[in-house]
């Protein structure tokens, strides 16, 4: 058992830290921040189910928000040198999930890119990666772009089937938004960035607000019917059921988009034109395949199979490893993902995991484990 939570002065606090504590959150260190893992009277299971059936409010202020701009030019062309997505083709108010790549095609981070206008992009990167990412972006394309870290903004996520009904009270325009679009909107005189996106597989929104307005805004959201605060524990089980990757676990700088089963993040134009970091290796993998692939893994029975558990083929050969695993409260069974040799990557392939010295049957499974319900 872990010791009781102490106030660690080494950890950063988000603008909602005091609110989490007042709501009875159990705080844990995550990516250098003191973050809520679950709340009193709820817990991971209830928080997970609540998000899939009503609306969950997440504090994701630890993530890195930044603006990438260029004078009299489109910063998308520069950014496309280090990401494989179609950024230049984004219209104002459209956003895209993409990957920051190194010269070997390895994934430095996964991120969201939103176009505000012809000269401005808005980036959201992972908390643990933000210093590394911003340094890399500045080094790679700093001559032709300007990167401004928005350290004074908080980021909230409101996720679940009731998210739109709740948020339209604050921002009526959200009813016209579809998945992966964003608007700038004012509430009580504060400039907010509202996107229809998230990390749960549910319909929902992420809302960037000035840090000095974050607590008031979060309290107003929590006062709405059907909204509850949700911690990082449920955030992880929700994204895992949705088949979404967690950087540092399912993705890292020695894994390419093809290996990560994220070929869809490299659209036709980028495959034809190349010209992004690691393109030679990645485009070769498009043609020839890779030796390993990210897949879903469905354990038989009730025992969760967790990160670093090794996977074996029926003949006993080691063929892979779990990179994320746990229990899926909505799926009502254990769920996992991991990397396996390409010959064993087909859905339905029978494998076994070696769990505490015991062979546990499992099967390569299509993801997501729970259907996504985005507003298209």
């Amino acid at each position, binding site marked *: *058992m*872990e*010791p*009781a939570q102490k106030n660690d002065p080494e950890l950063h606090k988000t603008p909602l830290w005091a609110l989490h504590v007042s709501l009875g959150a159990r705080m844990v260190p995550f990516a250098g921040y003191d973050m809520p*893992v*679950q709340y009193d009277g709820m*817990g*991971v*299971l*209830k928080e*997970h189910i609540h998000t899939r059936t009503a609306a969950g409010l997440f504090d994701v202020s630890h993530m890195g928000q930044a603006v990438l701009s260029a004078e009299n030019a489109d910063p998308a062309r520069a950014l496309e040198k280090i990401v494989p997505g179609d950024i230049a083709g984004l219209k104002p108010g459209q956003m895209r999930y993409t990957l920051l790549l190194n010269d070997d095609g390895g994934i430095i981070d996964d991120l969201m890119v939103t176009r505000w206008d012809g000269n401005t992009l808005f980036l959201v990167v992972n908390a643990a990666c933000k210093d590394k990412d911003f340094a890399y972006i500045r080094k790679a394309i700093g001559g032709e772009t300007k990167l401004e870290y928005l350290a004074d903004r908080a980021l909230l996520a409101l996720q679940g089937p009731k998210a739109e009904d709740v948020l339209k009270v604050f921002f009526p325009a959200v009813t016209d938004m579809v998945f992966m679009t964003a608007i700038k909107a004012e509430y009580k005189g504060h400039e907010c960035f509202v996107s229809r996106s998230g990390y749960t597989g549910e319909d929902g929104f992420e809302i960037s607000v000035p840090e000095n307005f974050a607590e008031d805004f979060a309290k107003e959201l929590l006062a709405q019917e059907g909204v509850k605060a949700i911690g990082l*524990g*449920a955030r*992880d*089980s929700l994204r895992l059921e949705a088949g979404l990757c967690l950087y540092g676990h399912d993705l890292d700088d020695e894994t390419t988009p093809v290996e990560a089963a994220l070929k869809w993040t490299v659209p036709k134009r980028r495959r034809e034109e190349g010209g992004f970091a690691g393109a030679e290796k990645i485009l070769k993998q498009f043609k020839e395949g890779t030796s390993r692939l990210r897949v879903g893994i469905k354990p038989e029975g*009730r*025992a*969760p199979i*967790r990160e670093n558990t090794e996977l074996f083929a029926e003949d006993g050969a080691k063929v892979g490893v779990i990179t994320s695993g*746990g*229990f899926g*409260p909505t799926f009502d069974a*254990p769920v996992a993902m991991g990397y396996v040799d390409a010959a064993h990557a087909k859905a339905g392939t029978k494998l076994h995991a070696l769990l*505490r010295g015991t062979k546990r049957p499992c099967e390569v499974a299509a993801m997501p484990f729970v259907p996504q319900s985005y507003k298209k």
Partner: protein
Amino acid sequence: MTKVLFSDDHEYVKIEDGIGTVGITDYAQKALGDVVYVELPKVGDSVEKGGQAGVVESVKSASEIYSPVTGEIVEINEALTDDPALVNSDPQGAAWFYKIKIANDDELGSLKDEGAYNDYIAGL
């Protein structure tokens, strides 16, 4: 007479007529969160004090159960296999893990009584 003792790892053992009933404390279930899976030892297994005698898994993590006493497993609580959430709702009652024939009464001296255990968790 029944006596209840506690380990520093947050297992309890209720002792009656040389048989110990072992589970995890309320403090432990709160720290673990929602329990989704319990792995129990087998009847007939011999376990050492401090040795692994099972696993309890929450949505987020797996924690080992260490036997507070040495002995032979004489009964396991199959109800936990079907309803692991019992560990959260009634940890020190219906959600016992196993019963063990206590091999060495001398070991009991190193365990805490309820008052000492409550003082111990208050300091964590």
